[in-house]
């Protein structure tokens, strides 16, 4: 299990990047993982079609919180259209830990919230 809770994951869990909220965000969205009640909210400020600022807040397990933290680092400053292409696999690759089927939704909650808020895509990101 040391595998799942690598230093990197714990670091993001205990000291998350971009944690907080944005006053008067251009986009805000919040959702929960129905399985465990984990909750993530993502706020975005958009300028010139790019993500000028991103913040997340919420509470949940180390996987969901670390994954959201990593996601915000990944997309901060990026083109909104490019972010649309981000896949479930991209996030799992970025986490680089063995995620069991029972925990996949924890890992993808952040991406789901981002896509729902930015593009109105409310389905869970597909994994192969």
């Amino acid at each position: 299990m040391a595998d799942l809770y690598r230093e990197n994951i714990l670091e993001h869990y205990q000291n998350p990047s971009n944690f907080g909220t944005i006053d008067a965000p251009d986009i805000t969205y919040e959702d929960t993982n129905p399985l465990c009640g984990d909750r993530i909210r993502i706020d975005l400020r958009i300028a010139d079609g790019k993500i000028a600022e991103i913040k997340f807040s919420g509470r949940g397990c180390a996987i969901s919180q670390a994954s959201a933290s990593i996601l915000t680092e990944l997309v901060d400053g990026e083109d909104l259209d490019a972010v649309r292409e981000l896949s479930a696999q991209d996030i799992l690759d970025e986490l680089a830990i063995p995620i069991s089927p029972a925990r996949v939704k924890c890992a993808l909650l952040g991406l789901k919230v981002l896509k729902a808020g930015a593009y109105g895509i409310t389905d869970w990101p597909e994994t192969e």
Partner: protein
Amino acid sequence: MTHQTQSQHTFDSERVRADFPILGRTARGKRLAYLDSAASTQKPQQVIDAINSFYSESNANVHRGVYELSERSTELYDQARGTIARLINAPDKRQCIFVRNTTEAINLVANSWGRENLKAGDTIVLTMLEHHSNIVPWQVIAQQVGAKIEYVDIDDAGRLRMDQFREILGTGSVKVVAVTQVSNTLGTITPLKEITSLAHQAGAIVVADAAQSVPHMQVDVQNLNVDFLAFSGHKMVGPMGIGVLYGRRDLLEAMPPYQTGGSMIREVHLDHTTWADLPEKFEAGTPSVADAVGIAVAADYLSEIGFAGIREHEITLTNYALGQLREIPGMTLFGPDGEDRAGVVSFLIDGAHPHDIASILDGEGVAVRAGHHCAQPLMRRLDVTATARASFYIYNTEEDVDQLVSAVETVNSIFGRRAS
């Protein structure tokens, strides 16, 4: 194997373990410590064999054929009902309706008895300890008929606030009290007999959710004087897909059917139908005969071991676990301390989410549940989103507890000491 020579004082969990083939396997490459029996129990070879031999030797539909196999199958189905009636001391086996599980049993009561007997202004009493299965069916019927729901709160230890229960009964509008006998989350054993007596004095009936009690203690429906009682086979070493609803005879006889179709009719005409007698009136369609045989073998298996011994074993293990877990830094333990606690231990560790706890435990071969335990109102009442829960049964040993405790220490070494 037979437990006939065992007295309560020589309860031997190693001998019990030998009956459960699945306990011999590993989990994530480690010894399996199965501590999720509150969700579903493992099955002894005797139950597995009974189902297998039903399909190999006796399978046919019931109540239909005049041929030998159908007669055999019908006989086994009736015998299974008799065994279940003896298990809970039902006055008549026709008062035991086979259903799929506890959830279906409660839905049957809420829909059939509820629709016939509840009206606008009536009160349904539930408690903060209830599983969603004993909340949602009542909410739906309450909405349909305009009845109101009151919840009996718990105290800080997780016991029902009986003072508040008395107060609610005092309003005079209570028609039904639906209450769990054992909380699947806190392990609280509720004073069901007292609840029944108070409810009856107030003119209300009592529906007992016995999903977590029948597998672990002697449940006597006549002594408890309950009006309905529901439980599931899969939580008492029996198969999944079968459960039981016990009901008071006069109530069952006055109730309309829940589902309709084949097997539950007396006469069908083009424009109307008359119902079969109990229990068939409530068993529409082909029943799961193999699973009925399985639950009966499970009931006999538990009875042979003896419920006094089972209870004593669970108390010993629970106390052994609580004693060690209490010493772990950052540990929060839920549920009452005392005689009124079953073998269920919900806990939290500072800085670690229950799902992370369960994942780390899983890596050590320890199977526990993490989440809301289908009791979201209780989670909110406790002001938590989830807990981790270990639950004990006949095949668990101190070795399982030691494995749990050591895995919990691993959780602490990963999450606890990193306070930054």
